């Protein structure tokens, strides 16, 4: 922290760190200044000229994104000069803007719309035809570009130049002919390409996965944490429940990064687009599948399983929350004294790591298990034990063993175990080969905490109702724990 100085904002004396940009310092005390090109993660080129303020003694409005706070500075954001300047510049932003809001996916979260309502509201004086540029340009696998809507704020080009350093985008041609485009021979396919959609203040860059699925004003936002890797990027889950017939019937419409010290302003495309399993292939019923398929109430299922859990081998994954891990430990380690626990990240959960955000461990919470002193056995050993007929009960929690061992081998191995229990949100390819299926909630349907690779404990909130009878993993473990206790009392074994 630098020196704290006093300055005047709209006549009010406020404090800020010396050198902090006025646009940020004002926001800190609740004064939002309109802007397009400035982004705290991408710098302040000062090209949009929207964030102007009046400084005492200066005859012309000055951009607040280029103005450091200093002792005695006297700025106003609410004068006639500022309002006229902002409305005038907004008008110039809109001279050649197509104004195609009714068919634009950005509508509802567009900087041009928002500021027009807030500071524009003028009658258009444009009698000239609009300039035409490229429409529907596939910038990359995730991003669609509309050059006509672009206001050339350069946020996206600065992102690919300075953050990913992949340089796919550029402003080509000069002046009024200038347009955003792809560098020759390049495609916007870097691992963080979706962020350009978030930072685009207008509808120039839209999300090919999301566009035309649902209007943004029907979405609800819930703070969450990305479960895609051990980084634990803070995200916002945007859900569509008010118009269930939109978004192809899917409840989760999109994920957006949320600023935090863990991930800054960004998230990777793997995390952003990796939510298909939240609405597909889900388990909802508590089922016994052998000898015939029967749906059971949770209590009956718990009673039935209680007797079968002693001596089981348990497979889990870093998808479990800290709360899940605590209940997991209470049931399997403390009560059942099971030592055969397998949850380490195998090739199924190890992937690309880079210097920006992505971690090689593709599950969010192995740290949570480590913090409780849990140790994972080797999956190779487990396979050998199954081959050797040593495993009488295999309890699989939120893990797809077909991805650990390969589908054929996993199927062959499962066939050798007399009792296989699958607990989790998704059925997976092995879901029909098990004896019991226990539906668990996905992370968006529960609340909990993940501990990221740095040891930071981060809470995530419940965005959606559970599907069918599904319950959080920890609740299932508690239920089973009680049933095991009751069974032991019945048998006369001391709990």
């Amino acid at each position, binding site marked *: 922290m630098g020196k704290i100085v006093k300055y005047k904002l709209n006549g009010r004396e406020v404090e800020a760190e010396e050198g902090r940009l006025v646009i940020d310092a004002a926001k800190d005390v609740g004064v939002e200044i309109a802007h397009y090109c400035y982004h705290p993660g991408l710098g302040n080129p000062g090209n949009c000229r929207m964030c102007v303020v009046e400084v005492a003694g200066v005859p012309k409005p000055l*951009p607040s994104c280029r103005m450091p706070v200093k002792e005695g500075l006297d700025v106003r954001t609410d004068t006639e000069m500022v309002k006229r300047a902002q409305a*005038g510049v907004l008008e110039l932003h809109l001279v050649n803007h197509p104004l195609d809001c009714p068919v634009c996916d950005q509508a509802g979260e567009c900087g041009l719309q928002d500021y027009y309502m807030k500071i524009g509201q003028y009658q258009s004086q444009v009698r000239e035809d609009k300039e035409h540029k490229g429409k529907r340009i596939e910038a990359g696998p995730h991003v669609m570009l509309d050059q006509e809507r672009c206001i050339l704020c350069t946020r996206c080009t600065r992102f690919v130049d300075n953050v990913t350093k992949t340089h796919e985008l550029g402003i080509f041609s000069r*002046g009024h002919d200038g347009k955003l485009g792809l560098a020759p021979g390049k495609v916007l396919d870097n691992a963080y390409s979706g962020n350009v959609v978030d930072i685009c203040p207008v509808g120039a860059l839209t999300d090919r996965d999301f566009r035309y699925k649902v209007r943004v004003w029907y979405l609800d936002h819930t703070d969450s944490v990305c479960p895609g890797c051990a980084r634990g990027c803070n995200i916002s889950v945007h859900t569509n429940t008010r118009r269930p017939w939109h978004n192809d019937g899917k409840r989760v419409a999109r994920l957006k990064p949320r600023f935090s010290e863990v991930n800054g302003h960004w998230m990777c495309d793997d995390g952003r687009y990796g939510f298909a399993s939240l609405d597909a292939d889900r388990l909802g019923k508590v089922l016994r599948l052998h000898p015939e398929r029967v749906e059971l109430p949770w209590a009956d299922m718990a009673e039935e399983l209680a007797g079968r859990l002693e001596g089981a081998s348990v497979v889990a994954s870093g998808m479990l929350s800290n709360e899940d891990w605590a209940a997991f430990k209470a049931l399997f380690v403390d009560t059942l004294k099971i030592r055969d626990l397998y949850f380490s990240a195998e090739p199924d959960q190890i992937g690309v790591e880079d210097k920006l955000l992505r971690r090689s461990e593709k599950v969010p919470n192995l740290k949570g298990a480590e913090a409780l002193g849990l140790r994972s056995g080797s999956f190779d050993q487990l396979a050998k034990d199954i081959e050797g007929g040593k495993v009488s009960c295999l309890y699989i929690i939120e893990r797809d063993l077909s991805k650990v061992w390969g589908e054929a081998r996993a199927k062959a191995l499962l066939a050798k175990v007399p009792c296989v229990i699958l607990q989790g949100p998704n059925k997976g390819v092995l879901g029909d080969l098990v004896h019991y299926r226990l539906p668990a909630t996905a992370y968006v349907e529960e609340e909990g905490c993940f501990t990221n690779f740095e040891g930071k404990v981060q809470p995530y909130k419940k965005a959606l109702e559970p599907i069918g009878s599904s319950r959080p993993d920890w609740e299932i473990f508690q239920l089973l724990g009680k049933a095991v206790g009751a069974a032991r009392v019945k048998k006369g074994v001391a709990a």
Partner: protein
Amino acid sequence: MTKVLTRHFDEPKLHELETYRRLGGYKGLEKALSMPRKDVIEEVKKSNLRGLGGAGFPTGGKWETVPPEEKSPGPRYVVVNCDESEPGCFKDRVLVTRAPHQVIEGALIVAHAIDAHDAFIFVRGEYQDQHDIFAKAIAEAEAAGFLKHCSMKLMRGAGAYISGLDTALLETMEGKKAWPRQPPPFPTVFGLMGRPTVVNNVETVSMLPHIMVNGGEWFAKLGVPKSGGTVVFSISGHIEKPGVYEFPMGVKLREVLAAAGGIKGGKKLKCVIPGGTSMPPLLEKDLDIAMDFDSVRAAGTFLGAGGMIVLDETVDAVEVAHNIERFLTHESCGQCTPCREGSAWTERILERVLEGKGTAEDLPNLTRVGENITGKVICALGETVGVVTRAYMTKFPEDFKKRVPNNG
């Protein structure tokens, strides 16, 4: 009439080192090198030399803002701006063609003053001949041992008008798009490759050898208070003898026109654009104003780079405004919105007015759009986009009114 830069321009081989030295060339550099840097800067401050590329910023004052070595260790650079692109300006072309060594010598004096060991001359892409002349002169200077302490390299522009603006020029030199930087920081603190850099115009550096030899006071006395020395005008348009003329700072506009033979064909004067197309014009009644930075400024326009365009009574102000706005639209770099969008919009409204399709609302709208541009842009080009049309509308309202029905 006192001449400083163009005094020996009648010498046929002035561009060669031998002739240049015979006439006193490189004596200024010799003198400068014998003086402490501080004293060189002091002498230039005393001379009241101001940047002749258009901004009119005191040259010595600019050098002084270069941080000292202990505050900013590492290289510092000199860049000579020979990206002369302002329509109506061609004096740098003549100064370079006739006396390239005068520029080189001046640049080396700047280098000494700010302790730079690398100098660059940035030549407009279209100036192929001048580039070659410089190349030859630099080779001569090198062979004669003048480049021992400071290297000198030539760089060429790619044709953008905006590259003539110092910060855009630096971006171009770094291989980027010619987008002006938003100061602060200024180039003397954060310039080429982020290092302290002095960017001076060809004419400005050409003055330096003479200031060194004859002293700052001598130079200051040639001009008026606050604007020392002489100024070189490029005169074109409806004038009998267009060309490059050198006058003391503060010369009356009337004298300048007379020296150039007066208005062509004895017609009446409509206006004079004093500093290059982007400046508001001066009228018949302004003929007695003194042509120096401050007096011209007081008359509501700018001395700029001395690109004087004379327009006679046959000219239509709407056509002039349209012509200039078309140029500015074409050359706007497109970085900041008010200039990019405002220039094109202004041009298109004027185009419609010229086609006879103007309406009563167009004139107040042109004024309004101009106001919305000026003062809200990054660089000087943007400022002028909003000024030019308004200036012609104010000075020649009848020309505009007769173009729109209901007299606007």
